[in-house]
């Protein structure tokens, strides 16, 4: 059976051109960039070339790019590194409710160590409004955090406006752009952010490499200590093949982004239009201000884990915000933040398209999905509303716990 991958927001295949660029750095140019002899210097040069390419993609200066082991480390370095370095100015951090766990957990870590974290509400589409941010800033606020785009529902945030509000109040601004980088244009000069997290494996580069943009003048405490690589902000021998791959991926994205985004938007809009023909289905996120390849739906009265399994039996890979498929058995915090009830959030499906997605892939999903939704709804006791049977029902198992 031909497999159809529709989970590009989870990770992407590495582009063949990227693999090609990386290969020599495993077996031939394997030097340590710190070494002074030629093996080291050619590796160092490769790292610096990659840095320039990543910087160019987001309109930064090369010296503002710190390579990390991935998006999670970039987020941790941004948040903990900034908070620890700047705690004398204040200990209050603002963060949106719909961040990736790499951001939320780093904030929680700080909250357990004397920092105070406040959570910014989002509207029904997932937007953080400048007014919400403005109203939440206090005298002791040092950092505000809002993702550039949301990885589940694809909503692209008004980062330039939000960062301006923060800047006016002397608050630094960090945005996690792991999911959007390479797929929509990001210009740090125009956005006015102080810190921006990037990841290679969401943009056809390898796993295990990411970067943090650190605007000139923004001071961070290092989290990893050692040989002092990456301007002493990230010690450890550079992942040279990974960084080279990231650079190549950035170069390709810069060149192809515009036409690719146009192609994906068209494909995505066709997909959304067709899927919404299924009764009692809603689109999560904004109809237009969303990532080109992202579609997120909620199907009433069914649960997403079964949906994902059924699709997988048909060779289709996609993801869900259902609690039953998460290790914590909690439904997606993003879907509940935009106002879905827990029951509704269970029936969500995220379909994310990317560089190698074709119209055939979408067609295949559209062939299978209505049938699968119908089958699961046939099994479900809920046909018209979740309240159908609540009335007059003795809800047993109230003590029922997910253990």
């Amino acid at each position, binding site marked *: 059976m031909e497999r159809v991958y529709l989970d590009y927001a989870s990770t992407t295949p590495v582009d063949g051109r990227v693999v090609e660029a990386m290969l020599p750095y495993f077996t031939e140019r394997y030097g340590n960039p710190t070494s002074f002899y030629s093996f080291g210097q050619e590796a160092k040069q490769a790292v610096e070339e990659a840095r320039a390419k990543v910087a160019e993609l987001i309109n930064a200066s090369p010296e503002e790019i710190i390579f990390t082991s991935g998006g999670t480390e970039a987020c941790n370095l941004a948040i903990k590194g900034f908070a620890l370095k700047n705690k004398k100015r204040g200990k209050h951090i603002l963060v949106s409710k719909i961040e990736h766990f790499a951001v939320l957990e780093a904030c929680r870590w700080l909250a357990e160590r004397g920092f105070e974290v406040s959570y910014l509400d989002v509207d029904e589409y997932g937007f953080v409004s400048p007014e919400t941010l403005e109203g939440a800033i206090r005298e002791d606020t040092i950092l505000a955090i809002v993702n550039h785009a949301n990885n589940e529902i694809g909503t692209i945030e008004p980062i330039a406006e939000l960062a301006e509000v923060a800047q006016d109040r002397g608050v630094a601004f960090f945005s996690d752009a792991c999911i959007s980088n390479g797929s929509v244009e990001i210009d740090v000069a125009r956005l006015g952010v102080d810190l921006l997290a990037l990841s290679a494996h969401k943009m056809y580069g390898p796993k295990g490499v990411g970067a943090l943009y650190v605007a000139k003048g923004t001071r961070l405490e290092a989290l990893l200590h050692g040989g002092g690589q990456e301007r002493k902000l990230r010690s450890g021998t550079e992942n040279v093949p990974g960084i080279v791959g990231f650079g190549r991926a950035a170069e390709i994205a810069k060149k192809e982004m515009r036409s690719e985004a146009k192609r994906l938007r068209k494909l995505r809009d066709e997909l959304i239009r067709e899927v919404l023909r299924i009764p009692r289905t809603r689109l999560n996120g904004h109809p237009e201000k969303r990532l080109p390849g992202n579609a997120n739906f909620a199907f009433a*009265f*069914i*649960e997403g*884990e*079964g949906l994902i*399994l*059924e699709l997988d*039996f048909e060779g289709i890979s996609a993801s869900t915000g*259902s*609690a*039953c*498929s998460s*290790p914590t*058995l909690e*439904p997606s915090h993003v879907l509940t933040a935009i106002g879905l*009830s*827990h*029951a509704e959030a*269970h029936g969500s499906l995220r379909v994310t398209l990317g560089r190698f997605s074709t119209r055939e892939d979408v067609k295949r999903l559209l062939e299978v999905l209505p049938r699968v939704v119908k089958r699961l709804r*046939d*099994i*479900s*006791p*809920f046909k018209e509303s*979740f309240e159908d*049977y609540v009335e007059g*029902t*003795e*809800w*047993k*198992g*109230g003590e*029922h*716990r*997910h*253990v």
Partner: protein
Amino acid sequence: MYSKILIDHFRNPRNMGRMENPDGVGKVGNPACGDVMYIYIKVGKNDRGEEIIEDIKFETFGCAAAIGTSSMVTELAKGKTLEEAEKISKDDVAEAVGGLPPIKMHCSLLASDGLKAAIADYRKKKAGKGDAAEG
């Protein structure tokens, strides 16, 4: 992560659907938690005059484990006396589906609870009717 037996019951659920005029209904779970199970039973008598589960059906909102264990519990209970059926435990259900990932064990609890709730509902209705007849 799931056994072949469970996947089979998820993909080809036995005794699935709503029952018209059931003798007892068990409704357990909560939509907010992501699993709700309805178990419907029809009660008859065997050769020895004992009450048995003559027919049983289920409807489930939930994950593959919840659907698969619902299907399994209906198979385990069908034809059993009410006393035997009541004794079906969550471990019996989990074992019958070939084991469950630890995080999904609560699904087998829900299935056995659903069956017990359906039997309890039947007994309650019967007692109610008895009272009415006597009254």
